[in-house]
């Protein structure tokens, strides 16, 4: 139990970017566009955040962090616009377009890094994300230590985003329309909904969330930008989406779960039975789990039906 309480906050740190990126994937796929470029979008977002915080950190102090995250989200959004344009307007295969963006992200960020900082890595980020404790809540037994004591505020942002996404997607007019485009775009169009517009919104939102997730990942798990800051978390977020059945709450729960699987190796020495396992075993867990989840859920197809389909209104 003590161990669990120790691990939990660390797991939340890893879970936060996974959850937010998975929400990004959710918006995109619910609108009908598969976004395997999340990994690349996160990297680009992390880079933009790094540059912003490094340049503003001296003068603005802590506030630079929030500006940095905002810029990260905006740049992620702009970057995803390429995916949106290419796959919606130019009807490209969404998987290939996403692959291209992933490839581009490593090249472009390191290239710019060299131009701006004369190195493959950025300098250290001058200000760090503050951890907060919430006065009364932190004294609740167990739960207080799990969530409210010395936690990054970003986790609460992630939870807010989950609630927001749920509300937006399942309670509002916009959400109904967006989801309809991911299920049966021809039906949406016949009801006067602009499918292309909804899909643009879906992809751009996913870009913004992906960029934000990248920025958060950078600020909470690293002290400088390098190509390896994201190391596969974007793909894990995709797995999370499958595991979470394309639902915001599912993303939250599986995000925390994958957060755990990411940090379990750090604590393996303290867990009886796991201490002898090779580290590779722990690293493999999230990826193997995702495949298992796919097999488990295969019988019931629960993803958006039209995700990945090119929508063609019949003519240009």
């Amino acid at each position: 139990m003590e161990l669990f309480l120790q691990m939990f906050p660390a797991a939340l740190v890893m879970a936060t970017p996974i959850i937010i990126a998975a929400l990004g994937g959710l918006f995109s796929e619910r609108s009908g566009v598969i976004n395997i470029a999340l990994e690349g979008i996160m990297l680009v977002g992390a880079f933009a955040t790094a540059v912003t915080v490094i340049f503003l950190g001296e003068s603005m102090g802590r506030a630079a962090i929030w500006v940095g995250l905002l810029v990260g989200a905006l740049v992620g959004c702009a970057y995803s616009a390429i995916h949106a344009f290419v796959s919606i307007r130019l009807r490209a295969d969404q998987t290939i377009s996403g692959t291209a963006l992933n490839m581009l992200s490593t090249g472009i960020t390191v290239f710019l890094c060299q131009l701006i900082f004369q190195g493959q890595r950025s300098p250290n980020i001058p200000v760090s994300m503050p951890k907060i404790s919430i006065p009364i809540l932190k004294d609740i037994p167990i739960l207080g230590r799990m969530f409210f004591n010395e936690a990054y505020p970003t986790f609460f942002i992630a939870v807010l985003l989950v609630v927001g996404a749920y509300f937006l997607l399942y309670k509002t007019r916009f959400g109904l329309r967006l989801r309809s485009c991911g299920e049966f775009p021809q039906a949406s169009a016949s009801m006067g909904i602009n499918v292309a517009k909804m899909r643009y919104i879906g992809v751009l939102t996913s870009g913004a969330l992906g960029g934000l997730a990248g920025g958060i990942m950078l600020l909470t798990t690293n002290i400088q930008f390098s190509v390896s800051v994201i190391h596969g978390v974007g793909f894990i977020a995709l797995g999370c989406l499958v595991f979470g059945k394309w639902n915001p709450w599912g993303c939250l729960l599986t995000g925390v779960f994958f957060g755990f699987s990411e940090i379990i190796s750090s604590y393996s020495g303290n867990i009886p039975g796991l201490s002898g396992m090779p580290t590779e075993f722990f690293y493999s867990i999230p990826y193997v789990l995702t495949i298992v989840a796919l097999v488990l859920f295969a019988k019931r197809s629960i993803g958006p039906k039209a995700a990945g389909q090119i929508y063609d209104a019949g003519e240009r």
Partner: protein
Amino acid sequence: MAYAVEMLNITKEFPGIKANDNITLRLKEGSIHALLGENGAGKSTLMSILFGLYQPTSGVIKVHGETIKEMDPNLATELKIGMVHQHFKLIESFTVAENIILGDEPVKNKMNVIDIKTANRKIKELSEQYGFNVDPNAKISDISVGMQQKVEILKMLYRDANILIFDEPTAVLTPQEIDDLIEIMKRLVKEGKSILLITHKLIEIKSVADECTILRRGKYIDTVDVKTTSIPEMAEMMVGRNVNFTIDKKPANPKEVILDVKNLCVENESKKQIVKDFSFDVRAGEIVGLAGVDGNGQSELIYALAGLMKASKGEILLCGEDIRNCSVKERFDKGMGHIPEDRHKYGLVLDFLLKENLILQSYADAPYAKHGILQMDIIDEHANKLIDEFDVRSGEGKESLTRSMSGGNQQKAIIARELDRSPKLLLVVQPTRGLDVGAIEYIHGRIVEERDNGKAVLLMSLDLDEILDLSDRIVVIHDGERTAFIDRDKTDFKDIGLYMAGEKHKEDTTHE
């Protein structure tokens, strides 16, 4: 007389085809106007233009006398035009209510939160008003096809549409549901709404419509007053010549039983029984027609015979041998030929060359392949032979990309391929769908020729006339069950229609 809708000189071109060619249609306020035409005549296209899903290449649309510059679904809805599409546009994972309100959702506050209570209430009211009895909270995937159509109608009524377009609404309905629908339409008109109805069924037109516009191969033929025009007259206008379709065909000379189907059952993916205890036989030298309303299990029956679906019970005897558990390939090898219902989906690989499509089943057999290696010379020779024999026309002969060929010639290629393998049993499914009259005649002639050569032919078609013209015996399917199995000579259009609606032939009732 005021017109609810006027579509003047509408032309619509798709790449390679003029789907509508200078068509004019006027719908009188408060009336039902039928649109009649063969498959591919351009009916759906015309209605899609009216609803704003397509933009016409040229022409004018007027609604209540006002010219509409550029129609789109939103504007159409604003103008109170509603459409029930031929293929339902319903989202399976959404509820009835969500499907109905989509695009016109009642909201509670500035956040645009959907007011689902109000929506449900309004839907309940509407549904009660028309006696629909739908549950707003049911998922579409859980309700019947007839119910789904009611949802489609509610979508229009919910938007207060007063110009209603029905695109082949009866094709998927049971006779009882069709009667209900006709009542509903009559009631709607009484309330002052105007209706455009697309259907292939002249009887339905006769029973509800006031006027009827006839299209043929994209062209406008005429608009007639339904009361004063007889069914044969309308039919003649639709196909462009005398409907006396009797094909020049000698009496059948049936011999031994080739296909014997005994108590066949087929289940779909969700384990629902689609074909129930179905039995019939086909003899060498005869054509047996399989008739039924679309969706009553005939496709599944054919799939089970062809090996594309598993039969859960019963026997399929081909020349006395049970092939129920044989693979598709084994069935072909044992003498089955299959002209599939959808030439684009099943019959052809459109991105293959014509010569490749001509060996689609036998590519691995001698002489086309030796030790797994394709024998190009022989394949070419074979292709040239079939192209000559069946007069398959295309730009580059055997090297043509199949996608670039016209529908009629694609179908000829399939027929050439199947007949060339000289099967003992030929499954022929919807062989003339979307084809022009010339192609139809050729194909019908070919089918009869095969019969006369002693082949057993099972013909499935949704076109009852085609069944009646070609068949020697007719087996009728309704809701997966056999309702009749009789000689062509002992029945007529009307009787078959009754059996298709579920009434059982007296022998069939006594049977069980």
